[in-house]
C-alpha cells in the first residue's frame, strides 16, 4: 500500500473514529455505548494494520492484533458481563444534560483542530487530520468519564480515551515501541479488572454504585 493511499485511509478512519465517539457520547443505553467503543477499537486495529502495511513496521501488526483481541473483543465482553451481573438500570445516567455534553463535544473538536493548526511544526509521519482526531478522541474520552455517574460508563470513557492516545501515538511517530504499547494495554486491562472487581464488590456488599460514593463524606 503506498503512503498516499494509507494517509487517505487513515484520514477516513479518523472520521469514523470521531463518529463512533459521538455515538458513545450520545448513547442513551450503556449497552450501545459498549458496542460503539468496541467498534472504535476495531477501527483502531484496522488503522494499525493499514499503517503496518504502509510502513512495513512489523511491531504494528502485533499491536493491531492485540488491540483487536483485547480491546475490540475481550474488554467489551467483560463489560457486558458486568452489565448483566449488576442488573442495574441500563440507561446512561449523565451528570449534565446530554445536549450540554454534545455542545462541549463540539467545542472540544473545534479546539483540537485549532490546536493542530498552531502545532504545525510537529512532524507527523501521517499527514492530514490524524493528530487532531487523536487529541479530540483523548479529550472526549475524558469528557465521557467526567459526565457519567456509573462506573461502567466511566470505563467506556477510559477505553475511548486510551484509543485516542493510541491513535495520536500512531499519527505522530508511526507507532510507539512495541513494549510501551503492550504496557499501556496491560495498564488498561488492569484498570478494567480492578474497576470491575470493585464495582461488583461494592455492589454486592453495600448495594451502591460509585455515584453514591459522595455519601461517604464525613
Amino acid at each position: 500500500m503506498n503512503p498516499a493511499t494509507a494517509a487517505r485511509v487513515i484520514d477516513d478512519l479518523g472520521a469514523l473514529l470521531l463518529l463512533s465517539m459521538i455515538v458513545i457520547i450520545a448513547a442513551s443505553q450503556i449497552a450501545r455505548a459498549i458496542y460503539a467503543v468496541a467498534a472504535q477499537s476495531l477501527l483502531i486495529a484496522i488503522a494499525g494494520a493499514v499503517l503496518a502495511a504502509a510502513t512495513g513496521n512489523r511491531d504494528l501488526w502485533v499491536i493491531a492484533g492485540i488491540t483487536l483481541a483485547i480491546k475490540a473483543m475481550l474488554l467489551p465482553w467483560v463489560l457486558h458481563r458486568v452489565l448483566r451481573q449488576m442488573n442495574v438500570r441500563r440507561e446512561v445516567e449523565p451528570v449534565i444534560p446530554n445536549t450540554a455534553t454534545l455542545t462541549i463535544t463540539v467545542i472540544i473538536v473545534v479546539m483540537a483542530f485549532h490546536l493542530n493548526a498552531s502545532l504545525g511544526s510537529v512532524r507527523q509521519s501521517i499527514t492530514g487530520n490524524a493528530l487532531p482526531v487523536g487529541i479530540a478522541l483523548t479529550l472526549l474520552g475524558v469528557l465521557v468519564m467526567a459526565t457519567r455517574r456509573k462506573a461502567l460508563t466511566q470505563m467506556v470513557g477510559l477505553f475511548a480515551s486510551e484509543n485516542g492516545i493510541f491513535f495520536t501515538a500512531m499519527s505522530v511517530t508511526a507507532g510507539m515501541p512495541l513494549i510501551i504499547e503492550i504496557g499501556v494495554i496491560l495498564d488498561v486491562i488492569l484498570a478494567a479488572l480492578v474497576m470491575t472487581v470493585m464495582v461488583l464488590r461494592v455492589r454486592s456488599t453495600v448495594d451502591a454504585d460509585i455515584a453514591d460514593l459522595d455519601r461517604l463524606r464525613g
Partner: protein
Amino acid sequence: MVAVCYAAGALSSMVAWRSGRLALGVAHGWAFLGGTLGVIVALGVLLAGPDCYLTLPLATLFPFARQSLSVDGLSAYFLLVISVVAMAATIYGPAYLRTHAPDASPARQATQALALNVFLACMVLVCSAGDAMTFLLGWEGMTLASYALVVSEDVDGENARAGLLYMVMTHGGTALLLVAFLTLTERAGAFDFVAMRGASGALDPSTRATLFFLAFGGFATKAGVIPLHVWLPRAHPAAPSHVSALMSGVMLKVAIYGMLRFAFDLLAPSQSPLPMSWGWVVLTVGATSAVLGVLYALQQHDLKRLLAFHSVENIGIILIGVGVAMMFWRRESAGGTVATLALTAALLHTVNHAAFKGLLFLGAGAVISRTHVRNMEALGGLARRMPWTAGLFLLGAVAISALPPLNGFVSEWLTFQALLGGASRLSGPAALGIVFAAAMLALTGGLAAACFVKAFGVTFLGRPRTPEAARATEVPVPMLAGMTLLAAICVAFGVAPGYAIRLLDAPTAGLLHGPGASAVVTAHGPLVLSTGLTPLGTPATAMSMTFMATLIGLLVMGLVGVGWVLRLRAPAVTRRLAPTWTCGMEPTARFDYTATGFAKPLRLIFAPLYRPRREVTREMAGTPYVLRRLHYEGEVVDFAETHVYHGIQHGVSNVARIIRARSTGRIYGYIGFVLGALFVALLAFGVRAQ
C-alpha cells in the same frame, strides 16, 4: 427636488395645526405627496448612475456650523425605503385612526397627524444630511416625534411607561453618537461630512476603533439590537399601527443607514480594509439578535409585540450581511465579490423587511381597529370575517418566514450565499464561525416560520374565541389599499428581484468603490440571480425566482385543471360541510389550539433561554376528581432584561445607597460638590491643553 419633497412634509404639518377631522385627511394627504416625491427623487438619483449626487446648502441656523443636504446613492436608497412605506402608511392612516378611535378628540388627532409629519420629515433629514449637525438634529427630531406618537394613545399609563423607557434608552444611544460625531468634528474642524472624510484618514487605529464602537453602540440602541432592545417591544406596539409600521419598518433602518455611513464612509481609512474585529463584532451581534429575537417573538401572544420582536430578528439578519461586508471589504483579490454580495443582501433585506413588516403591522392594525384586542388568544376565526386582511397578512407571513417565492427568501438567499462565499475564502475557526452563523440563520428562518404559523393560525383561523372577534368585519378600502401596496412590493421583489438589484447599484458601488450590485448578482440578466465566481474560478450559484415562480404557477394551474376534469367526469361526487371532529363533544372554540399551547414544545426545548415560569392553581369541587376551575399563568422572561438590566439596576441602587449615606441634605453642600467637580474638570482639561 429634495427641497420640494421636504417642504411638502413641513407644509403638511402646518396644515395639521388647524384642528378638526378634516385635518387628518389633509395632513396625511400632504404626507402622501411627500412620500411620492421622495420616491421620485430617490429613483432619479438611483437610476441616474453611480456618480449622481445632489447637494443643497441650507439656511444657516447656527453660526458655527454650515448645514447642507446631500443625497448620494446610499441616501437615496434609504430615502426610497422611507418614502415607500410612508406612502402606504399615509393611505392607511386616516381610515385607521377613524376606525380605531372614532370618538377621539380632534386635538389628539391633529397632534398625531402633526407628529407623523415631523417624524417622516426628520427621517428624510437624517438620511439626506450632508453634515453632522443636520444629522443629529434630524435624529433627535425623529426620536421626539416618535415619542409623541408612542404616548399619543395612552389609556392606562402603560404607553407612558413604554415611552419613558424609549426616551431613556435612545438618549443614551444619542449621547454615544454625539461623542463620536463631535470627536470627528473636532478633528476635522468642520461639521460637514466631506471634511470628516478627509480628516478620518489621519486617525490612529485605536481612536478609529473607539469611535466606531461608540457609534455602533449608539446606532445599535436605535436599531434595537440585543441586548439594547428592551425599549423596542414596548414602544412599537404602543404607537398607532401605521406608526408602528413606520417605526419598525423604517426608523430602525435609519440606524442601519447611520451605521453604514459611519463605518464605510466617514471612518473608513483610504485604500485599506476595515479591521477584521469590527466585522466579527457586527456579525456576532447580528446572529445573536436574529436567534434570540425570533425565540422571544415565539412566546409573545400580543400580536404587535410579536411583530416588534421580529424586528429585532430582522435587524440581526441585516447586520449579518453588514458584518460579512465589513470583513471582506478590500480584503479580496481583484474581482472579489463577497463584500458586494453581502452588502447587497443587507440592503435588499432592508427594503424587504420594510415592506413585509410594514404590511404585517398594517394587517395587525386592521385586526385591532375592528376588535380592539391585541392578545391573539382572544381572537380567531377572522379569516372568514376579514378575508382580504387575512390574505394580505398571510402573504406578509410567508415573506417574513423567508419562504419562496416572496422577497424575504431572496435576501436571505443572498445572505446565505455571502456567508458561503466568505466561508470558502477563509480557513480555520473563522470559516467554521461563518458556517455556524449560516446555521443560526437557518434556525432563525425555521423558527420564524413556526412563529408565523402560530400568529396567523391563532389570529385568523379556527373559531372566534371572543365576541369581539366574532363581530369583526372587513376594514375600509383605504386601509386595504395601503396594505396592498406593500404586498405588491413583497411579490414583485420576490418574483423578479433582478429589477430591484438594479436600484442597489449606486449604493453598493458608491460605498464600496467596487463593482455595483447588478454586476455581481445579475450578471446573467435580470431574471437570474448569480453570485459571481467561486474561489476555483468557475461560475458560482445561479438561481431564478422568476422561472421558479412560473413553474409553480403552471403547476397550480395544471392541478386545478385536473381537479376540474375530475369533477366533470364524476358529477355525482359531492362536497359537503360538517363540524370538525372533536371526539364526539360539542365543537367550541375551546378545542382550538391556543398560542400558548402551540409554542409550548419550543418553550420547553429552549427552556434554558426562556426560564419559563408557570403557576397552575386548581380549584376542586369537593372531591379530588372533579375540577371546578383551573387557572394557568405562564411567563417567559427576557434574558437581557433580567440579567443585564437588573444587574445594572442593582449596581446603581447600591451606589445610590452609599451616596445617600454620605449625603447631608444641605443644599449649599451640593452646590459645593458642583463647584468641586467643575474645578477638577477645568484642571484636567487645562493640563491636557498644555
